[in-house]
């Protein structure tokens, strides 16, 4: 079998990995993608029922790699975010007009994002090794050799672990991960509703966990319903009428009559954080480096920030004829991304612990906190800009500049 040589081999054809692949291919790098499924199968509506919150900074990244024009029609802008603590009247209200940089973000169904990626990759010079998994990897002084189950081998200066929270490449590279599970399940479905959502995203902190209603196109919303593990199976078993009734009980009547879509998905919730993001000739991005609680809708956004930073480091080195996968490049990536991701893990974890309970004193304290933030416009603006991914040492793509 012949070995093909590349600058970069991305293991995992998910949304984060393909962003990196397309970004680097766009500036002339030789890029391979290895995916155990096929990109077109992954774009099927039944593969992934989730929607993704695309923060303003992430939208710029997707625009920079030429993907946004394929997504725009399926993206619903988030104009307003309302956070409420259970039945309590106290809530935090984020209005995009307070920041003045366009919408706070967008909600797009993952199936649409995956379809756009499959199209963009088909039109690019990215070489895709599909329907084959990683069998083994050898890490050498100047490159890495990836052996695929189908017998082919891929040689690259740098291999990217973009194969999710159970990353095979991360394990082969000997990178350990810290992990913990939440006693919660994420129930995901789409609903069609009578009344318009007006671009408002709602997050209700219920005792079982956060319950989010995210605005989607064509008068639909994506529901992310965090439920206790012991209750989730029974809820998933309900027929459509009972399920709708349970939904309505949780978010009230403001959307009018609600009809549940054909499918429901359930995802166990956990945190996985790699001790290192890099090892010789390997860098981990997205969920392979850090899988977080979906409470703030930041998982995909963090992954995009990783690849925007890494793509910049790689291309700056390739343009100087330097090794894009040596220690210096890798350490620069880890230094750039790890603190930001750790902060988000800590923030989402504490938010979840703080709100997923019904203990009266805790509830009072957090409600006072929410009310306080709401009364302090400068603090609120900082928090909003942070959630929009517009704070910190931003890579060129996040600033809306070409790679």
């Amino acid at each position, binding site marked *: 079998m012949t070995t093909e040589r590349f600058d970069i081999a991305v293991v995992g054809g998910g949304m984060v990995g393909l962003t990196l692949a397309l970004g680097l291919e766009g500036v002339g790098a030789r890029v391979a993608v290895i995916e155990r499924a096929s990109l077109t199968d992954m774009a099927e509506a039944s593969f992934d029922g989730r929607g993704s919150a695309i923060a303003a900074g992430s939208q710029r990244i997707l625009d920079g790699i030429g993907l946004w024009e394929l997504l725009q029609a399926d993206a619903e802008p988030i104009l307003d975010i309302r956070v409420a603590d259970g039945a309590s009247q106290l809530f935090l209200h984020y209005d995009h007009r307070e920041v003045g940089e366009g919408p706070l973000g967008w909600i797009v169904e993952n199936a649409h994002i995956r379809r756009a990626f499959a199209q963009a990759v088909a039109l690019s010079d990215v070489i895709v090794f599909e329907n084959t998994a990683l069998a083994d990897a050898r890490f050498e002084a100047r490159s890495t050799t990836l052996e695929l189950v189908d017998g082919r081998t891929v040689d690259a200066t740098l291999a990217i672990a973009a194969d999710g929270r159970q990353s095979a490449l991360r394990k082969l590279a000997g990178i350990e991960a810290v992990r913990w599970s939440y006693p919660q399940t994420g129930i995901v479905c789409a609903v069609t509703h009578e009344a318009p959502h007006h671009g408002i995203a709602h997050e209700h902190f219920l005792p079982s966990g956060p319950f989010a209603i995210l605005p989607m196109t064509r008068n639909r919303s994506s529901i992310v319903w965090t439920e206790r593990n012991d209750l989730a199976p029974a809820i998933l078993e309900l027929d459509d009428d009972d399920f709708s009734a349970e939904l309505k009980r949780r978010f009230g009547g403001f959307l009018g009559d609600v009809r549940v879509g054909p499918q429901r998905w359930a995802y166990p919730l956990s945190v996985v954080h790699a001790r290192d993001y890099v090892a010789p000739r390997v860098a981990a991005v997205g969920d392979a480096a850090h899988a977080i609680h979906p409470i703030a809708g930041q998982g995909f956004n963090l992954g995009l920030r990783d690849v925007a930073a890494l793509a910049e480091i790689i291309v700056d080195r390739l343009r*100087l*004829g*330097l090794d894009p996968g040596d220690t210096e490049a890798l350490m620069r990536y880890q230094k750039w991304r790890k603190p930001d991701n750790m902060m988000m893990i800590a923030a989402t974890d504490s938010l979840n612990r703080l709100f997923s309970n019904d203990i009266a004193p805790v509830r009072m304290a957090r409600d006072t906190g929410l009310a306080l933030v709401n009364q302090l416009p400068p603090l609120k603006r900082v928090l909003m800009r942070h959630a929009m991914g517009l704070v910190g040492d931003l890579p060129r793509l996040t600033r809306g500049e070409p790679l």
Partner: protein
Amino acid sequence: MAAENATTIDPEDVARFSAIADEWWDPDGKFKPLHRFNPIRLHYIRDRICTHFGRDKQSLRPFAGLRLLDVGCGGGLISEPLARMGADVTGIDASERNIRTAQVHAKQGSLDISYRSTTVEEIAATGESYDAVISLEVVEHVADVDLFLDGCAALTADNGAIALATLNRTPKSFALGIVGAEYIMRWLPRGTHKWKKFVRPSELARGLRRNGITVEDISGLTFNPLNSEWQVSGDVSVNYVLFGTR
């Protein structure tokens, strides 16, 4: 040619030079300061040469088709990136050991670079010329600066370019370049540099102008201890780089 070479290569020799190459190319090893310093030097040279020859610096092979000479190439730390940027590179070094090391390393990376153990005077005498002559951190080590500059200039083709980097002879360069780099930070072995041999920008410029080179730019390369990064600056009192054209 390959078959001919095969008979003259001593495998023990290759192993020895390959070990030295590993040393040169270990970013955390003995040459770590050079690896840290390399990107900014390449950045400067890439931008200047691209502007001069009307090349796209965003390209991954901006130097495609250009013939470049790397004078005092050492283990090939500059020659290899130049070759990856698309240039047709010749690297020369007075040390046979350096040349063998560079050859072994280029071969491991499948890079086609012509390395020769020779001096700038010898190669200039053959009448060769290059689109650009690059010599970084070399002139402060040569015995006769004027002779060296004459040679570099002679090797620069008409409409070609020349880039030289070195250390200035100032009190600050003594403090930072010798005391700081060799004694305090231990970036370099003691005795690497002799301060008296450092070259002032005016001396470089004079030696080149005398040979028909127009000095286009002199910039400082300064180390920012806050973020441990090198940057191009207006401060030429320690490390600096000169760009000229013919």
